[in-house]
């Protein structure tokens, strides 16, 4: 469904991505992990053409997003929902108004129908009581859940998550993981998650790609990922106290 073909990207004074190639299948929860500064978010931004590759291309189904312009790019982007690291909620709108924004701007639905959908999505993410609050009045975890409700309100085919659990306490982080897994189970949505949180990746991911120095150094299912012999992967697993002795178990959420 999403295919990176030999993508290279030069930013500043170095190659952030060097010959990155992988393919994501429909319905996957695909994790891109790695230490900070290895090109995870840059990879994600190529999928919606917030960045353009210097070499190679990114295909979304049959569409080449790397060369798309104008209306074609707009059409491709409508297939995506994006959860930014900061949530990117509009600060002068309430949570409900933020979630309703895509419906108000892009559809001709009646206010009552919009309100019903907003209520449904906010209940899905566990925020039915925060409808009338402003983003500055709610916690970081609640902001991310509100942003998630906004991202899914137009029922996208593909969801991109940029560090969805960063800055959250473990309970909130696992709640976000559960939401991602739950949405995939209920709607079959394809999810791509950028994170350095291996616990999330191993718990709910279908496959995990590890980026290091702009290259994919490992791409495997969670069970195989923890057994990887690549030294950088071993070091990354060790840094999060994840054992590779075979006693790791995938936790069902």
């Amino acid at each position: 469904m999403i295919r990176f073909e030999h993508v290279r990207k030069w930013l500043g004074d170095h190659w952030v991505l060097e010959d990155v190639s992988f393919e994501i299948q429909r319905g996957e929860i695909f994790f891109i992990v790695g230490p900070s500064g290895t090109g995870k978010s840059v990879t994600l931004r190529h999928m919606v053409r917030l960045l353009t590759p210097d070499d190679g291309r990114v295909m979304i189904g049959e569409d080449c997003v790397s060369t798309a312009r104008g209306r074609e790019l707009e059409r491709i982007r409508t297939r995506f929902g994006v959860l930014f690291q900061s949530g990117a909620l509009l600060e002068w709108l309430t949570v409900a108004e933020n979630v309703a924004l895509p419906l108000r701007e892009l559809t001709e639905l009646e206010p009552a129908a919009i309100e019903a959908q907003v209520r449904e999505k906010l209940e899905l993410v566990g925020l039915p009581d925060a409808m009338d609050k402003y983003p500055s009045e709610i916690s970081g975890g609640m902001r991310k859940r509100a942003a998630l409700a906004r991202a899914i309100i137009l029922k996208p085919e593909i969801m991109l998550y940029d560090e969805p659990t960063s800055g959250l306490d473990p309970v909130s982080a696992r709640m976000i993981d559960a939401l991602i897994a739950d949405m995939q189970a209920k709607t079959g949505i394809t999810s791509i998650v950028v994170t350095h949180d291996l616990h999330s990746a191993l718990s709910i991911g279908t496959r995990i790609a590890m980026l290091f120095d702009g290259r994919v150094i490992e791409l495997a299912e969670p069970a195989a990922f923890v057994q990887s012999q690549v030294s950088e992967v071993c070091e990354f697993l060790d840094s999060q106290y994840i054992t590779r002795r075979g006693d790791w178990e995938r936790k069902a959420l």
Partner: protein
Amino acid sequence: MGELTALITREPVYRPPADTRRSELGRRVLDLVRNCGQALLLLASAIGCMRFIFQDRSRDRIVQQMFACGIKSLGVITIVAMFTGMILALQTGIELRKFGQEVNIGAAVMVSLLREMGPFMTALILAASVGSSFAAQMGTMTVSEEIPALELMSIDPVKFLVMPRLIAMAVMTPLLSFYCCILGVIGGGIVGATQLGVSWTSYIDNATRYAENKDLYVGLLKAFFFGIIITIVACHEGFATRQGAVGVGRATRRTVILSFLLILVVGYIVTRIFYI
């Protein structure tokens, strides 16, 4: 409107430091040309979005912006306009009294306010208050990824953010300028009546005898251009913001400085076209 998507969220540009002063100068010139081009494209895009002006949601946003940039500026414009008229009347009146011509302060105040001072003072106030607030808001939205988020939701930031502000400022700046002129004339009349011994009747009679309709129209036209300049400079600088809070501060400062400069230059050009 699809092309606009690429216009707002631009890829970061990294460049090594220039080797020589000449290359640094060349780079600055190129940056200036590029910024001018991008600002003009933004203006063209916003004008293109005006076809949505009659949609309910667009109309609501325009009214909100008119209130924010127009009504909320009334207080400061009232004070500035009154004192500008009073100072003008006092300065010219003191000199004219030496020749026994103090009755002519009406014409001096009215003509200078209508032609230049009214639109100019209004524009400076709006650039400093409304323009800087536009730039800070757009800049904060850019660095906190709200602008890319809008684009990825297929909500055009130009239609959503720039067009309502542009219309609001294009309408409200001439209106505020007119209001500024009226209060300035009243301020001048107060000084004339209380300090220079010029009666209200002769003051108004003198003012209306020498001022022409053209002075009013050209002044309003200037104010219209100033409103557009302030909005486009502020939104362009806001969208170009990089590097967090420091970048927002820089965008705000650049907006005020560039707006002031452009207001002076465009004010001169319009005067040159209509009066020579």
